C-alpha cells in the first residue's frame, strides 16, 4: 500500500476538493500526490493560519477543504482554530506531520512535539495518531467524522508511520 496515494484517494472519495499545504519533509509525497490530482484544487499557503482562512472561505463556498501541515503549526494557528474554525463551526481535517516523535533526527522538533497533544487536548480537538502504516485505514472514517461534526480534527502522522524520517 502506498500511503500517499491512499490518503489522497480517501480525500477524493470524501469529496474533499480544496487542499492547502505548507510543506514538511515527511509530507513531500502526499503533497506531490495532491498536486497531481485533477479532482483537487491545491493552493499552497505561506502560513498555516492563512491556509485555515482559505479553507473557511472554500467551505462556505460549497467545497470540502483540508489542510496539510507540520505539527509546529499548531503553535501558529491556535487563535485561528479557536476564533474562526471552532467559533463558526467549520469542518477542517488537518493532516499533520508529527515531527519530534520516535525516529526523529532533529532535536529542535522535539520541543514542539512535547506540546502538540497537550495543545490539541486543551482545544478539545479530536486527535488521531498514526504510528503504524496500517493506521491509515482509519483515515476514511476520520474524514466522515470531521464533516459530520463540523470541527477541526487532527491526524498526527509520525516518522514511523511514514517509514522513517527521510527513508521513504
Amino acid at each position, binding site marked *: 500500500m502506498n500511503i500517499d496515494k491512499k490518503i489522497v484517494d480517501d480525500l477524493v472519495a470524501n469529496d474533499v476538493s480544496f487542499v492547502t499545504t505548507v510543506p514538511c519533509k515527511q509530507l513531500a509525497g502526499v503533497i506531490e500526490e495532491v498536486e497531481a490530482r485533477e479532482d483537487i484544487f491545491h493552493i499552497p499557503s505561506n502560513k498555516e493560519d492563512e491556509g485555515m482562512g482559505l479553507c473557511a*472561505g472554500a*467551505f462556505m463556498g460549497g467545497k470540502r477543504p483540508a489542510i496539510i501541515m507540520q505539527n509546529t503549526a499548531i503553535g501558529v494557528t491556535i487563535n485561528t482554530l479557536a476564533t474562526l474554525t471552532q467559533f*463558526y463551526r467549520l469542518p477542517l481535517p488537518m493532516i499533520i506531520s508529527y515531527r519530534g516523535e520516535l525516529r526523529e533526527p532533529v532535536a529542535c522538533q522535539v520541543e514542539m512535539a512535547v506540546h502538540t497533544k497537550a495543545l490539541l487536548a486543551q482545544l478539545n480537538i479530536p486527535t488521531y495518531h498514526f504510528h503504524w502504516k496500517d493506521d491509515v485505514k482509519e483515515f476514511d472514517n476520520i474524514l466522515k467524522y470531521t464533516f459530520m461534526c463540523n470541527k477541526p480534527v487532527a491526524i498526527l502522522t509520525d516518522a514511523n508511520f511514514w517509514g522513517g524520517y527521510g527513508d521513504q
Partner: protein
Amino acid sequence: MIRSEILKEIAPILNPHLVVCNIGLPSQELHMIDDNERNFYMLGTMGLSSSIGFGLALAQDKPVISIDGDGSVLTNLGTLPTIANNATGNYTLLIIDNGSYGSTGDQPTYAGMKTNLTNVARACGCENVIEVQDKDLGPVLQEAVDSDQMTIIVCKCDSGNIKLPVITMDPVVIRHRFMEAVKG
C-alpha cells in the same frame, strides 16, 4: 473621510454581493449601515479577511469582496503572494488604509509611514492594484466588481472611528445565513 463614511458611501455597491468584512469596527459599521445575509462579519481572527474571501471566491463563481484593513494585511502579508499567484476574476480585495489600527484606538501602522501597501501588493505579483483616495472609491470599486479581472484596491483615508455597539449575532447564525446567500 474616515472608514465609516466610506462604508456608508459604498454600501449600495456592496449590497448585491458577497462581502467578507474585517474584524472590529469595520464589521460593526457595515452591520449598522446595511446588515444583510450577504455580509460575513469577522468577530475575531485579525488578518484573515482577505484569505477567507479569497477561498470563497475560488470555490464558487459569484463576485466576492473582502474588506480588509492596513493593519490586518500587514499581520497576514503572506496573503498577497497567494492571491497574486492564484488570481481569480471574481475577487476584489478592498484595503481600507487609514494608516492605523483603528479598532484598537488608531495606533499608527507602518502603512502610514514608510511602507506602501500598493507597492507591496505589486511586488507580491498582484497585477491589477489601484490606489485611490477615499472620495474617489465608489466608481473604482464598481468597476473592479464588474470586471472579470481580479483587483486589489488600496483606499487611502483618514484615521478615526465612531462609537458603535459590538455585534451580538451568534457566529453560527452569521455563517449559516451567509452560506444560504452563497447558494441562493
